């Protein structure tokens, strides 16, 4: 029996008992300005009209056949195409579902090393981005609609001029480039216009890691983690599970090494970080530490492990105890240890990380260095050098390729003013954003799902991107634009990419094979091993860096660096750990909040180096005391109808010298309160024991520790009769030991099941519609609590409390054990939701789904009903996928095979924490999982007999730091 089963909490208010009210309770539909008489008039009129509406027949409908049927398409059957989506420039292999020519859903590509069949939240959200009605829809010349032909003529005259001047004054700005085609085209620009310059600006790029490798080995190298082989992992401000390039893959590898039953044993993760991350939440030991202090700790660790590390400050007793435990554990796992340094740490910290890993013999075992995956920036190829060139008036033409520097450039560069001095600003982008409105020519970019391209994954594996649909708004890709600029004889996207791969894929068969599998075989980079150079002494801690609070800048966990601001799925996805939606308040530690008497939502002013920003605060358990965090990606003015005006613009405080953290912040309370929409207290299961956790020691002593204290081992007796067994017994098992809380399941479910977003104000009332939520529980003191994630879909109870109370039979049991919701029977009493102990039912209080925007209709899954206002809805275990598999198998008179039905949440899960299948088949993965001793039922004492069950979470603490 674990001692950890008590004391879980979800919010600070809940812990202190300060606030008994959960979501803001307000009248469901305010009857604004209506008296009783008017109300009854309206009531009568609507009843009469409703009766009239019943008289009409349903709309007739038409059938419009093709003139020529598309090759290989069976009308109504979806097809899947392998392609590539990039995140921060790095490739993720995906399979795109095409329904009658419309891309509707993204799945991971099992052959791709960065995916292994799973995806992150951004891949899921990219279909919504494709169909976003706010996308830029035409070429604009100084804000007036124009044409590509007119732009081509203007570009022609520029090209003639640059041909004469060898490109003097021509600058190109892009994000990180891993696309071999784009890299070759940039080289071509250089060849044609030798004095042209290319700048790279990725607001959350990994420049420090590349520079750190240069300090350590003399050249810039990419680093890859091999977490499957790591037995002890130390993260120094490193959120590798959220890594933009490889997070999905790292999560899979990490969790595979965390299995208690596997032969390799269970790895141990230590995380030292200033602000909580999903990686920190998975740690066996987590130490909150200011970002600026981590360097001191790392130096001490280096010295302890025999690495010639430069001098460092004294450690506190607590830190010294940690250091001792860490160092001995690392040394005991020589060759299977790994030190990971975060992107926010300075370059020399990355160099020190390499030195530590060399001392631990990690290179080649748990870590590999390869030649850089991204195209390396030129000398002076930074945004800062572009800004100084602009201010000096040296930039005649600036071509911005899918970047938005007018919004996301650090404030000290004064970029927007610099842009004013550029004679010709050309902007290629999906949206007419902050940069687009300043541009002489704004050019609509073809979406990744509309264009040919290629890219490299974190390990160098190249893959092709193919269009799923012709550009909706006549957009063109960066490849096509650069081909115009360089007057390439090849102008069309496919031909440009084909030419690039002519050598590796000489014949059509090899090309088709690469397209079909989604990866170019054998294109991963080979690991390199280089001797370590003498490390330069660390820059001494600067007194100025130690003063005041440090402000950390991090990519937002859902909207990234601002690129995804106009995506309502991502905006409304509760952010991991904070469970906040639609906002990016300043994260402050509980101690700091107490000192400055701040409460959640209090307005503050941030003052840093003469700049200031007004924001709201959020008290973040586990935040280092002297650190505050502001996420990038909010405060946009011209994101679109969804993203404009949400949150606070962190870029206004960011400096190009210290893009990740700045010390000397002053925090001044300005009074007043800002409304924040956090879902952390919604759908509470009333203080029961939803998450069960034990240590590896608990597990070894009693594998069934999770259920050891239960009143009824096994199912308690019931007065209700059993349902007769059906052909299948669908069930789900969720492994809490594998769940990293990334929330990809929530957004995959949203994409699959046509789930609407409701907006910030409705989220505040607890009306978000997600069918699978991921609860986050804290345990322990708010200064450094442990955190656990728990995905909660419908439990599909065999004795379902919801079914008993529905007056109209809208929620009923089916023969295979599914608890079915029949939307067209539902009259919206909400009795079912009130009677659901798991709070997994969602009600359409208003007409949330946009029924007007045509492009959004094209995104929706045609196999799932669209729900209207006044209807209850909930997780169906993806009934549409079950039925598809049923029909396919029944047609062939066979049983549904293993793995034929994957629910959307299961398919997307990076760590395969969710298993689904036929519980009645003892060989199925889900039946095997349910036989695990860690298996437990949520609220088993209610005897609702859920078909969804959980596997208890395990921790592997170091006995030196905690009794295990």
């Amino acid at each position, binding site marked *: 029996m674990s001692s950890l089963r008590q004391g879980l909490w979800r919010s600070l208010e809940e812990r202190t008992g300060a606030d008994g009210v959960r979501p803001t309770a307000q009248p469901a539909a305010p009857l604004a300005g209506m008296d009783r008489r008017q109300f009854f008039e309206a009531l009568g009129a609507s009843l009469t009209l409703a009766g009239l509406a019943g008289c009409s027949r349903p709309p*007739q409908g*038409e059938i*419009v056949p093709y*003139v020529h049927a598309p090759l290989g398409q069976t009308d109504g059957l979806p097809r899947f195409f392998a392609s590539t989506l990039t995140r921060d420039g790095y490739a993720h292999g995906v399979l795109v579902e095409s329904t009658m020519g419309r891309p509707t859903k993204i799945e991971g590509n099992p052959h791709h090393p960065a995916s292994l069949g799973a995806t992150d939240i951004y891949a899921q959200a990219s279909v919504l981005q494709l169909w976003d009605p706010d996308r830029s829809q035409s070429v604009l010349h100084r804000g007036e609609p124009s044409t590509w032909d007119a732009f081509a003529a203007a570009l022609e005259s520029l090209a003639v001029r640059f041909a004469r001047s060898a490109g003097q004054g021509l600058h190109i700005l892009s994000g990180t480039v891993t696309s071999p085609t784009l890299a070759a085209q940039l080289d071509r620009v250089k060849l044609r216009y030798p004095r042209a310059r290319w700048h790279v600006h990725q607001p959350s790029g990994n420049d420090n890691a590349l520079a750190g490798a240069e300090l350590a080995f003399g050249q810039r190298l990419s680093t890859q983690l091999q977490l499957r082989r790591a037995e002890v992992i130390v993260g120094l401000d490193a959120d590798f599970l959220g890594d933009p390039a490889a997070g999905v893959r790292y999560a899979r590898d990490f969790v595979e090494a965390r299995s208690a039953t596997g032969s390799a044993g269970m790895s141990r993760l230590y995380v030292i970080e200033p602000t909580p991350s999903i990686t920190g939440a998975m740690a066996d030991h987590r130490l909150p530490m200011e970002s600026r202090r981590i360097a001191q700790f790392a130096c001490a660790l280096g010295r302890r492990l025999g690495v010639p590390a430069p001098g460092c400050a004294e450690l506190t007793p607590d830190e010294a105890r940690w250091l001792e435990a860490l160092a001995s554990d690392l040394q005991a796992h020589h060759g299977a240890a790994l030190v990971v340094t975060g992107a926010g740490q300075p370059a020399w910290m990355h160099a020190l990380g390499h030195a530590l890993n060399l001392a631990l013999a990690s290179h080649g075992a748990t870590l590999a260095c390869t030649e850089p995956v991204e195209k390396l920036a030129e000398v002076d190829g930074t945004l800062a050098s572009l800004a100084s060139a602009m201010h000096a008036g040296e930039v005649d033409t600036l071509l911005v390729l899918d970047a938005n520097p007018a919004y996301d450039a650090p404030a000290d560069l004064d970029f927007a003013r610099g842009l004013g001095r550029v004679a010709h600003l050309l902007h290629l982008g999906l949206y007419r954003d902050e940069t687009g409105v300043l541009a002489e020519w704004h050019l609509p970019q073809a979406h990744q799902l509309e264009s040919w391209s290629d890219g490299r994954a974190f390990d160098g594996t190249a893959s092709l991107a193919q269009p799923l649909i012709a550009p909706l708004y006549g957009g063109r890709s960066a490849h096509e634009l650069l081909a115009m600029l360089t007057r390439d004889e090849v102008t069309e996207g496919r031909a440009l990419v084909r030419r690039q791969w002519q050598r590796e894929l000489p014949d059509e068969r090899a090309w088709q094979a690469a397209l079909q599998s989604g990866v170019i075989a054998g294109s991963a980079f080979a690991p390199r091993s280089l001797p370590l150079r003498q490390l330069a002494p660390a820059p001494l801690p600067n007194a100025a860096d130690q003063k005041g609070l440090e402000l950390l800048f991090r990519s937002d966990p859902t909207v990234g660096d601002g690129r995804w601001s106009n995506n309502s799925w991502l905006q409304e996805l509760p952010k991991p750990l904070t469970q906040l939606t639609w906002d990016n308040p300043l994260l402050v530690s509980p101690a700091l909040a107490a000192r400055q008497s701040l409460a959640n939502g209090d307005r503050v002013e941030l003052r840093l180096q003469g700049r200031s920003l007004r924001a709201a605060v959020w008290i973040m358990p586990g935040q280092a005391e002297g650190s505050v965090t502001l996420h990038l990606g909010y405060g946009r003015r011209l994101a679109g109808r969804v993203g404009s005006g949400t949150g606070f613009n962190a870029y206004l405080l960011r400096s190009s010298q210290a893009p990740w953290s700045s010390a000397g912040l002053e925090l001044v309370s300005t009074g007043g309160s800002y409304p924040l929409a956090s879902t952390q207290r919604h759908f509470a299961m009333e203080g029961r024991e939803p998450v069960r956790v034990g240590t590896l020691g608990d597990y070894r002593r009693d594998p069934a520790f999770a259920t050891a204290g239960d009143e009824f081992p096994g199912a308690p007796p019931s007065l209700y009769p059993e349902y007769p067994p059906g*052909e299948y017994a669908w069930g789900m098992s969720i492994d809490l030991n594998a769940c990293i809380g990334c929330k990809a399941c929530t957004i995959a479910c949203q994409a699959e099941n046509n789930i609407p977003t409701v907006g910030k104000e409705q989220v505040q009332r607890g009306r978000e519609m997600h069918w699978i939520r991921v609860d986050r529980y804290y345990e322990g003191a708010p200064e450094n609590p442990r955190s656990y994630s728990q995905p909660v879909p419908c439990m599909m109870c065999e004795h379902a409390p919801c079914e008993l109370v529905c007056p109209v039979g809208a929620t009923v049991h089916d*023969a295979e054990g599914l608890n079915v919701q029949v939307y067209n029977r539902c009259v919206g009493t909400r009795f079912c939701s009130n009677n659901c102990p798991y709070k997994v039912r969602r009600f359409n209080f208003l007409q949330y789904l946009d029924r007007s925007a045509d492009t959004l209709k094209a995104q929706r899954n045609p196999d799932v*009903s*669209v729900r209207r206002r006044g209807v209850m809805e909930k997780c169906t275990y993806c009934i549409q996928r079950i039925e598809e598999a049923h029909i396919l198998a029944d047609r062939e008179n066979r049983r549904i095979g293993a793995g034929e039905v994957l629910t959307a949440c299961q398919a997307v899960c990076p760590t395969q924490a969710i298993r689904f299948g036929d519980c009645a088949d003892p060989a199925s993965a889900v039946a095997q999982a349910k036989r695990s001793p860690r298996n437990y039922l949520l609220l088993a004492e209610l005897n609702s007999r859920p078909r969804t069950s959980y596997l208890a979470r395990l921790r592997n603490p170091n006995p030196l730091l905690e009794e295990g």
Partner: protein
Amino acid sequence: MAQLFSPSFGFLLRLGVLAAVLAAVTLVSAWRALTSYRAAPLDALEQPVPFSHKHHVGDDGIDCRYCHSSVESAAFAGMPPLSTCMSCHSQLFTDQPALAPLVDAYLARAVLRWQRLYKLPDFAYFNHSIHIAKGIGCASCHGAVDQMPLTWRVAPLTMRWCLDCHREPAAHLRPATEIFNLHWQPRDPSALGARLLSAYHIDTRRLTDCSVCHR
């Protein structure tokens, strides 16, 4: 004080109540009759081209699947692309005025809009392929189209009509060889139905589950 009610009031009251009851019964009966699922089948609709199943199926003997090609593999039976029509009509009757909309649309690569006869509400997910695979013939829902000069609808497509069959599927099953035969009649319906029910492995437990048709 004068009498409040006249002597005839009781009679008038009874008459009034009777009239009200009669009116209510009449209204309800009329409503039931009008909205009955056995209401008259839908008449043929005006189509851009007066397509005759009688001619194509009855006279020429073209198989259903020549045009409705995905009926065995997908939910949607398939509506032939114009190129399928033109595989014959580029040679036959090409210059007939009745075919002009088809030929014009084909040449201009424009759309031809047929009026839908069989339309289910969007929340009902009907799948042709499973019905074909499990022994439901075309004629069961579409009637003898080979005798329809213009196609009309023979089934009400109400939920009750669906359920009549899902509750008692045996009576509607036919051997796999007779699915596309529009005039097949069983010789011994009861014995055949029971035999086919097991031969097709039809799981009658779930045929009336909501989840079979609604998602």
